[in-house]
């Protein structure tokens, strides 16, 4: 009996070995736990786009994509297990969608020679490509986001916020702490008062933080939340009747799942974004035709066109474009992780390219270089329209305060280089 069971298990594990991978992409997703509400749409978008490429174009450059999913539950231990379990067979790129897991993977992936794309999250100073060879965080990062929020507030007050107070409600983790230094620097520059209100994982308990907001009445609240924390915060803001148009979330705090629970009174809530919203793009017709109608949609297939689905799809699109760039550079279809990295480092996203893909005017144009792995730092503000049930862009894309951010990036990345004896590249 035991022997049989063992054989069965061994056979099962052996069978698990993938059919020789062509272009292996790993999706470290989380469809369970307190962050699932945000993890599911992102992962659906990420997978559907690759499925579309496989079904419509026969992969990228003639090579099929082998998409492997691994459930992390937003948990770092499981994230490490996923990474170790899937990194073989030339995995091309990792998109962990977790700042905590990113911090774990930066040294590991750098040692293994596998590129990481931490789109709009992770370690901000990875923007400095001369220190972080294997890590990319284009098109925008947390410090850009902090600056976008402050600039938006500046624009609303005709450039003078010296007498304003801003409260930052943040997830008490590496993720939530990222913007603090930038906001402090910007407060020196613009003269506003900054209050810090940490919320502990997973973020269901925020009564005291919002009580403090109610008492101190800050003019603006900026939020760095994720998962269930977003829904709770927006509900609490509604409860204390905080003016929603003065409540600005980072791009990870601005999906339909976050605001819907609070009902109509969440109307006017703002969130940053670095790509466009909605599903009025030609690519969605293809997704409908080749993926959804063919019954191949990832997950329940009910997230298509939502903010985070778009973001996941955008991430997949950027990965696919990097693959194409790498294929052109090296003249081979079946690229290695090393070549993928070259593709990412020479990635150029132009309006023509996006229009050709079927995503015209979807995101800002940017170019990745050896020194700059983080794009140009363009972002926009979106606002929730409760009646229409969707987020809509209310500003154009604008650039973050590069003066301050470049300085911070340099400082932080150099101290990382020093700690880890990294030789600078790109000279």
């Amino acid at each position, binding site marked *: 009996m035991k022997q049989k069971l063992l054989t069965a298990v061994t056979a099962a594990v052996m069978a698990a070995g993938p059919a020789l991978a062509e272009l292996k992409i790993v999706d470290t997703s989380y469809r369970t736990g307190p962050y699932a509400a945000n993890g599911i749409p992102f992962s659906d978008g990420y997978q559907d786009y690759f499925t579309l490429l496989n079904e419509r174009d026969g992969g990228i450059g003639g090579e099929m994509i082998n998409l492997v999913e691994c459930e992390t539950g937003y948990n770092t231990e499981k994230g490490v297990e996923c990474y*170790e379990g899937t990194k073989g067979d030339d995995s091309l790129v990792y998109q962990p969608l977790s700042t*905590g897991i990113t911090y774990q993977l930066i040294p590991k992936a750098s040692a293994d020679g596998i590129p990481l794309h931490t789109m709009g999250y992770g*370690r901000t100073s990875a923007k400095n490509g001369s220190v972080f060879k294997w890590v990319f965080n284009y098109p925008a990062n947390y410090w850009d986001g902090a600056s976008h929020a402050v600039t938006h507030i500046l624009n609303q007050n005709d450039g003078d916020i010296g007498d304003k107070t801003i409260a930052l409600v943040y997830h008490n*983790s590496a993720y939530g702490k990222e913007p603090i230094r930038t906001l402090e620097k910007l407060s020196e520059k613009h003269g506003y008062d900054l209050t810090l209100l940490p919320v502990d994982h997973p973020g269901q308990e925020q009564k005291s933080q919002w009580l403090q907001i109610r008492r101190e009445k800050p003019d603006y609240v900026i939020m760095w939340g994720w998962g269930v924390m977003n829904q709770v915060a927006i509900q609490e803001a509604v409860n204390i009747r905080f003016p929603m148009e003065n409540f600005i979330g980072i791009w990870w705090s601005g999906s339909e799942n976050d605001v819907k629970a609070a009902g109509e009174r969440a109307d006017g809530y703002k969130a940053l974004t670095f790509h466009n919203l909605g599903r009025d793009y030609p690519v969605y017709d293809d997704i409908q035709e080749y993926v959804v109608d063919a019954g191949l949609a990832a997950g329940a297939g009910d997230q298509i066109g939502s903010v985070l689905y778009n973001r996941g799809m955008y991430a997949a699109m950027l990965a696919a474009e990097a693959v194409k760039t790498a294929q052109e550079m090296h003249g081979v279809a079946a690229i290695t992780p090393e070549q993928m990295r070259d593709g990412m480092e020479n990635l150029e996203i132009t309006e023509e390219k996006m229009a050709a893909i079927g995503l015209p005017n979807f995101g800002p144009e940017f170019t990745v270089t050896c020194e700059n792995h983080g794009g140009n730092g363009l972002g926009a503000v979106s606002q929730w329209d409760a009646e229409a049930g969707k987020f809509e862009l209310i500003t154009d894309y604008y650039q973050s305060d590069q003066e301050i951010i470049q300085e911070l990036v340099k400082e932080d990345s150099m101290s990382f280089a020093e700690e880890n004896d990294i030789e600078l590249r790109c000279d």
Partner: protein
Amino acid sequence: MFYREAGDFKTSYEADNQTFPIKFDRYRYYAVLVIAFAMVPFVINDYWVNAVFLPFLIYSIAAIGLNILVGYCGQVSLGTGGFMAVGAYACYKFMTGLDIWLMQDGEWVRYALPEINIFFSVILAGLVTSVVGVLFGLPSLRIKGFYLAVATLAAQFFLVWLFNKWSWTYNYSASGQISAPERTIMGVPVTGAETAPWAAYLFCLVFLTLSALIARNLTRGMAGRKWMAIRDMDIAAEIIGVNPLKAKLSAFAVSSFFVGIAGALFFAVYLGAVEVGEAFGINKSFLVLFMVIIGGLGSIFGSFAGAAFLVLLPVLLKNTLVGGLGWPTDLAAHLEFIIVGGLIVTFLVAEPHGLAQLWRVTKEKLRLWPFPH
């Protein structure tokens, strides 16, 4: 047939009192040691080390530590996660050079100790944790049972809060994370990204072996008997001359020492970078407590069995369901909870004293087999 003392004569008191008095058992123990030290390091790869062996070894140390407190001394603790955090942060401070700030002429001046070798950093981390453990163990002199559990729960929350708040503990890094730089032992890296799988494995295995040996010998000696006397009935123990102050606090100290070592290894060798709320939250306290309860209270072997059960089973299930059967990952993740939960209940119904008791009963039966009468 097996496990029979027939023909296995002892001529000295020591020989009769050894941990494995039966020859078969002893040889099995030696065999396990040989395999673990001399064979496994040659065959393991990154996946086996990082997904299976390191968590198993490290959680075993933590479970041994907690077992001393809960299983042997009867003091319920929910502060394990917090104590592991103390170990991790202490180890981080020692391995990166502990800095001390002194006020001189009105300004703060930084003095730093040299970086301490990782092996000794881990041990020092254990010592620091045992001091903290004793501090939080003081209430145990007055409160018992569930009330003590609540007091240690306070330790859990306080310590996590402290390591979030006090930026000195994470060297003022912007993200509040601590990450282990590369450290070597005799030129071989054991922390950092360049660590070879066998080096990380052996490093933790050495600590586990030492911990188990120390714990085993403490628990069957004078100290262990005192702890067990306190556990069984503290008033009676006091009457026969056991000092409850010393017994309880020494249990807290020894237990926290091991838990601290586990925390240090968890951070430095296994994960490489941690943030306190995520890695050492209340879930960790419960996980280790469950390991001890499922494995068997008051048994060193039980600590191993409990750690193996709760670390290996989810990985095995995941590989079978997702890898083998190709199920969707979310379905598998939910089923994993159901199956592990169900098995815990089943095992505890079948044997309320844990896997260690199950093993003991099996041994009894094997001893009589094939003639049970």
